[in-house]
């Protein structure tokens, strides 16, 4: 039992503050209190600048696309139209892919799926801004990196179905992709673990005098893990050539960002504490994302050290197929989100500069749809999840070690016997 404490002086009673999101089911969301600085207003320091000079940007917001979808200000990456169209197409593909695979899960074709709806600009544009040889240590909403880097959709689906086309032999939960050739480190179910790993890879690159850099990814909720701290500490200490991205989509399953500390500071501000260069970026603005990652990459490549980037965005759908957000947040939040939809914004920009039109847009959407359907057909030829887990029992016992020790071989034989 808690000790009874004699009442002391006239000290007021303490009270625990438990953060509460502004809206709950039944409320009408109104995000007008969120400060959205005008596009183009954030200054762009030189990439070689001292880390502390970037720190005012931790509470600012790097934005390029203004209300009229014009690219403005010093962060405009001045990309050619082909690059912009590629990013747009990637985003559309990701959204279509997400919808199909979400449905596939609902149809019982697999056990689990996670969308990144509303956050498509972040991964696709970041991928475009890095070199193909650079590596990503992603978390589970960066499917856009694979799409951007040209990883076959059918391979993604085979992973989701755990079918024979999955080079990981069906061992990982759906969407836990991995591909070395595409610089996409294996996703872990354990939040945050990839963050110090990205730093370690970058340290290795520096140790070997290489020029490749790494980018680590984490969600707003997962920043609370100890691994976040070790990543930031090691990155700062060794001046590692790494970009540490935090995707602040406002929610971590049912907990809003305030439960991760978002009421008291921006996530970008964490970087200040370590003396790391820091940017806070409109995550629904593909141009801002590109410019920020490019800036950080230039900095890292010239041995000027790590950059921490907060991408400010909104998780427009449920956490995963296991989640129903209507139980904890107000309907219509995604629609009221002040930073808009990343696909619509880039589309409007391209149209505005005369490089795009509605027709071509419905065409790429249709094409994406066709491409995704075709991939799905092909993937499903190799099977869906409920059909798996029978064809190669022996495979379960491989790859625990490079060589199978006797005890695992015995267990394999027992399992094979069992299936007879």
């Amino acid at each position: 039992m808690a000790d009874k404490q004699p009442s002391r002086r006239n000290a007021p009673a303490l009270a625990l503050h438990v953060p509460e999101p502004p809206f709950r089911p039944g409320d009408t969301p109104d995000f007008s209190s969120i400060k959205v600085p005008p596009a183009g207003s954030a200054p762009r320091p030189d990439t070689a600048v001292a880390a502390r000079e970037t720190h005012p940007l931790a509470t600012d917001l790097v934005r390029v696309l203004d209300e009229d979808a014009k690219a403005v200000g010093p962060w405009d990456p001045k990309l050619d139209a082909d690059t912009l169209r590629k990013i747009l197409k990637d985003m559309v593909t990701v959204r279509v892919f997400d919808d199909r695979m979400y449905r596939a899960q609902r149809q019982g074709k697999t056990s689990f799926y996670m969308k990144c709806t509303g956050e498509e600009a972040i991964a696709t544009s970041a991928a475009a801004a890095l070199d193909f040889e650079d590596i990503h240590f992603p978390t589970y909403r960066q499917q856009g990196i694979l799409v951007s880097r040209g990883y076959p959709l059918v391979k993604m689906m085979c992973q989701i179905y755990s079918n024979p086309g999955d080079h990981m032999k069906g061992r990982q939960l759906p969407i836990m992709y991995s591909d070395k050739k595409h610089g996409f480190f294996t996703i872990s179910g354990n939040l945050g673990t990839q963050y110090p790993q990205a730093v370690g890879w970058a340290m290795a690159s520096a140790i070997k005098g290489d020029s490749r850099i790494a980018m680590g990814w984490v969600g707003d909720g997962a920043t609370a893990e100890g691994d976040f701290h070790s990543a930031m500490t090691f990155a700062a200490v060794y001046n590692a050539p790494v970009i540490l991205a935090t995707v602040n989509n406002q929610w971590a399953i049912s907990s809003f960002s305030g439960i991760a500390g978002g009421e008291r500071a921006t996530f970008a501000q964490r970087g200040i504490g370590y003396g790391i260069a820091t940017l806070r970026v409109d995550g629904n603005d593909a141009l801002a994302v590109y410019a920020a990652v490019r800036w950080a990459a230039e900095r890292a490549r010239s041995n000027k050290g790590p950059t921490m980037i907060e991408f400010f965005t909104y998780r427009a759908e449920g956490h995963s197929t296991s989640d129903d957000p209507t139980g904890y947040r107000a309907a219509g939040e995604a629609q009221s989100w002040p930073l808009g939809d990343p696909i619509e914004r880039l589309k409007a920009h391209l149209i505005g500069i005369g490089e795009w039109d509605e027709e071509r847009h419905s065409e790429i959407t249709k094409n994406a749809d066709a491409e995704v359907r075709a991939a799905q057909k092909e993937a499903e030829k190799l099977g869906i999840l409920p059909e798996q887990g029978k064809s190669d029992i022996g495979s379960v016992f491989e790859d625990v070690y490079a060589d199978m020790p006797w005890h695992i071989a015995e267990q394999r034989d027992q399992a094979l016997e069992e299936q007879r």
Partner: protein
Amino acid sequence: MPVMNMIQAINDAHKVMMRRDPDIVVYGEDVGFFGGVFRATEGLQKEFGKQRCFDAPISEGGIVGTAVGMAAYGLKPVIEIQFADYIYPGYDQIVSEVAKMRYRTAGEWSMPMVIRSPYGGGIFGGQTHSQSPESLFTHIAGLKVVVPSTPYDAKGLLIAAIEDPDPVIFFEPKRIYNGPFDGHHDRPVTPWARHKASEVPEGHYTVPLGKAEIVREGEEVTILAYGTMVHVALAAVEDNKIDAEVIDLRTLVPLDIETIEKSVQKTGRCLIAQEAPRTSGFASELATLVQERCFYNLEAPVGRVTGWDTPYPHAYEWTYFPGPKRMKTALQKVMAD
């Protein structure tokens, strides 16, 4: 009597105890407003307020670490680790602090708290939503380790755990939250309502820690099991018409050695079932104890039915899971020897 599934029973245990003891505080990832991803804490924040039931940052180390401070203050934290697979970032605080506190201070500070966590596989959760790490806790002196197998026991054991003066790791086999899954994954799931242990008394009662239950009496062989494996064992025994004595350990530490010894002395044979990987699993400790204490009664080596020494493979869940066939083979072996 109310009929409950395991989640409802666990939820009810919280409510009963929070009403009785104002020092109980419940927190963990998503446990507050939403009531937890498995809904074990549903309604607690509403009834007891945000100061007694709240969401925590995604930091298992922080959750356990702050619970240590709260217990030191005099509160009784009942915390949830969302999946047992995610308990490792809190492992240092559990092993180095929670477990050793009473000992290192000779009782000056103690750590009454319950660390609840859904555990085990069978839900296609892949490598990181399926693990059974109990032996990583049974090795740590100072911790009690509990694994319930029915709604009745879940409520009674959880209340006992909350009332216990020492820290309790409370692993909830999530595969049996909704029904007594017996390993026949190809058959329809039986809901708890059809099992008599779904009758859960209202209000306060306890199932004492450290007491096993003989869930089936038998003469030919003793089966030691806990959690989901109790139901798999029972089904295998019925399927194969073996007159086995099935013991549900319920508490792994401290163990009810008497019940085990008596049974093995009677049957002369022993099989142990665990879902966890084989090597250094808790079954090894059980087998060792049985052969140490009942050696001259044993007519055959103590057998083990276990998960494999691999991570939990998503698509090959039913190759991994120790189901009726593995149980049958092992039973046949221990009976034949």
